């Protein structure tokens, strides 16, 4: 006897609607949702969060009395449950998912389908937001319950939830960007710990900020400075998330693509936007100290963002040299990336120096503003030059340059004070001349006496930059013998 064929249910209107929707959305979202809902992690954390929220609400409900205001404490408690998942579990899952994609090189197969790195990443990001929304919708009734316990108003709850989603998107961007960095097993293992550390820091910061928001909401929301700083932080987070996203997309691009355009445009837009925002905020008060802090913070940011932007495998400029637009800074290649970063440093540094000249800044502060971009140029140039002395395969250049940069920063900041401790003083002027931290502090402390040191840093920066350009032109552009 032949077995009866399985009974297949005819698709109803919801099935058809679901199918039509799945056809329209990013395939990665469909895949990630299918995979995500099957994982034990999702169900375990979902159940844990619900059970925890339930117990907390029962606790507050049992202890609530007429006239008490325990809403704020309840909100923070519920937020801890939601934040643990949104700021740790979801970004970590996104990291694992992206890391598996790079480990097993399935991203290559995806790119060949025409999906493209941006859609791969936006799919990962989208599925994380979807997961976050699932968790948030489950926690929403509890958060709302805290409003009925008095002590917290609805706008604060809404701001808290919206900020949490934005912060989660930022943490997911960081996680998937880090996942695309690994080029070998040892680096992957190292990055795993880096991500865990970053996310633990992210959770504590996120929950701390939300607690602060709940406690001081009324006072803070009425302050103009609060909104200025908050909007600057949000702008910084959003633009950094975009930059990280574009950088990750570039790393997931094939060598045949014009992968450098996205990150460089994002970098230039971010730097221009943030400088413009700073200028707008600064002109309201024209506080001289703020200008110095702005110049130093900008220099530090350009230093760390620049090292990611300027690194590429040697020879990529040459590969993308033939089909026109040779000097376009948006095309691939380490030489073009380095040129783009140097121009950004010079322009932003020049603008800060120009502003410093038009204000009543003291000599020390002016010298700090003047020296900041020189340290950036020195360390970026020196990393490029020294990394290319290391015997290597050309496709390892980006990692070698980044490691050299880190080593230089550590040595440059740590060695001179150590040597100073033995020879004279830890903050010895001469020994710390090229120390980006102590050097700047010394220049800030010593007034006109610091001028020769500023000149020395600029001279070193010029040598390093020229040398880097020569070495990059030879290895990245000129035809092989």
């Amino acid at each position, binding site marked *: 006897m032949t077995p009866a064929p399985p009974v297949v249910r005819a698709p109803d209107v919801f099935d058809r609607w679901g199918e039509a929707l799945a056809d329209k959305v990013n395939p990665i979202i469909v895949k990630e949702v299918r995979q995500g809902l099957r994982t034990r992690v999702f169900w375990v954390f979902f159940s844990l969060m619900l059970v925890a929220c339930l117990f907390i609400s029962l606790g507050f409900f049992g202890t609530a009395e007429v006239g008490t205001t325990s809403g704020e404490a309840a909100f923070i408690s519920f937020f801890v449950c939601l934040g643990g998942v949104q700021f740790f579990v979801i970004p970590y899952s996104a990291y694992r998912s992206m890391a598996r994609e790079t480990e097993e090189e399935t991203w290559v197969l995806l790119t060949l*389908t025409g999906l493209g790195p941006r859609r791969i990443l936006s799919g990962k990001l989208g599925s994380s937001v979807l997961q976050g929304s699932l968790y948030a919708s489950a926690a929403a009734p509890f958060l709302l319950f805290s409003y009925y316990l008095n002590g917290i108003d609805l706008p604060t709850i809404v701001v808290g939830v919206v900020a949490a989603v934005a912060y989660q998107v930022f943490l997911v961007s960081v996680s998937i960007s880090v996942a695309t960095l690994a080029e070998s097993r040892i680096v992957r293992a190292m990055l795993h710990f880096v991500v865990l550390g970053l996310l633990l820091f992210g959770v504590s910061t996120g929950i701390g900020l939300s607690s602060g928001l709940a406690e001081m909401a009324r006072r803070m929301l009425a302050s103009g400075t609060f909104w200025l700083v908050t909007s600057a932080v949000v702008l910084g987070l959003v633009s950094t998330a975009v930059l990280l996203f574009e950088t990750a997309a570039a790393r997931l691009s094939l060598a045949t693509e014009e992968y450098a355009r996205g990150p460089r445009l994002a970098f230039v837009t971010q730097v221009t936007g943030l400088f413009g925002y700073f200028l707008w905020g600064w002109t309201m008060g024209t506080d001289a100290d703020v200008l110095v802090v702005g110049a130093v913070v900008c220099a530090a940011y350009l230093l760390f963002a620049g090292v990611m932007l300027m690194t590429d495998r040697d*020879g990529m400029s040459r*590969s993308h040299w033939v089909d026109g637009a040779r000097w376009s800074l948006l095309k691939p290649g380490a030489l073009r990336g380095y040129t783009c970063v140097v121009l950004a440093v010079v322009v932003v540094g020049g603008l800060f120096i120009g502003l410093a000249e038009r204000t009543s800044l003291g000599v020390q502060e002016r010298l700090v503003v003047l020296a900041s971009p020189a340290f950036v140029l020195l360390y970026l140039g020196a990393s490029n030059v020294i990394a290319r002395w290391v015997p290597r395969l050309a496709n390892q250049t980006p990692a070698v340059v980044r490691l050299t940069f880190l080593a230089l920063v550590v040595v440059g900041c740590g060695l001179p004070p150590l040597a100073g401790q033995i020879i004279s003083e830890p903050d010895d002027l001469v020994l710390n001349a090229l120390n980006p931290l102590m050097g700047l502090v010394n220049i800030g402390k010593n007034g006109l006496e610091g001028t020769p040191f500023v000149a020395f840093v600029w001279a070193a920066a010029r040598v390093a930059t020229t040398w880097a350009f020569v070495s990059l032109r030879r290895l990245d552009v000129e035809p092989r013998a």
Partner: protein
Amino acid sequence: MSLLSVKNLTRSYGSLQAVKDVSFECEAGQILGFIGPNGAGKSTTMRIIATLDVPSGGDVLLDGESVVARPDQARPLIGYMPDRYGTYEDMTVFEFLDFFARAYQLRGAERKARVDSVMEFTGLAALQHKLTSALSKGMKQRVALGRTLLHDPKLLILDEPADGLDPRARIELRELLRALAQQGKAVLISSHILTELAEIIDTCAIIEQGQLLATGTVQDVLAKTAGVSSSVEVEARVLPSAVNDALAKKIERLLLEQPQVSAPSVSGELVRFTLGLAPGSAATAEWSQQASVRVLRALVAAEVPVVSFTSREHDLEDAFMSVTRGRVQ
């Protein structure tokens, strides 16, 4: 015009030249075996053809268009299967193929029809609800092959597809590849297992240290390389019931008395020896036949009970060994 035309392809990594001036062609409906030791430059060449890497020099034309200049246009024509299967372990066979079909922009009924037809062709229909992690290596490899067929490409690039497969899975893969070639697809396949390749490929390209050493139809390459060998392996069998020490010694002595015979060995009923010329002289087919007849006559005349006598024919493995030097870079 050939479907695939590789022209003077070069790829350097720093001072290392992974591919040096490689040129070959592949027609539609043809299976081209890309043969070479590890590190010979096979995967690099295949990755360039698959638009995953840029060459330092030369070009690759697919259907007359440069894949280097226009990778986006070339990709829909290419199905690439790397040496790693790259199957998502926590998806079922159907979900995996359905996901890639979505990625290839196939929608609605068209996608379902395509996934069904690929599962049917690769024999995966019965396993469609199984997780890919639960599949055998051979079945995983079929899933990977199915993925490359979803968008109906003209050229299939398969990097070591038979690696690690059991004999049955290898035979089944062979049948699938033959069927694909009959559908008019060009197949570029690399493998270490030359005996497997010999049975399915029409043309071959032998590469070592990034340099192409021989290319053409299998017959052409065998004919060219046969003249290079200066020795022929001969294998004979004697009547099992007559085997004893005295007979073994007699055979060995007899063989050593024959001109051009070396390295005789007798192991039970099996007798092996080499017919060789002076180094540098080419062992033609006619010479090896005459020499074999002379030795057989001597054995029969000495009343050795020979039941079979065969000289091993020059095959792809010999061709490979005769043109390569075992150099790696």
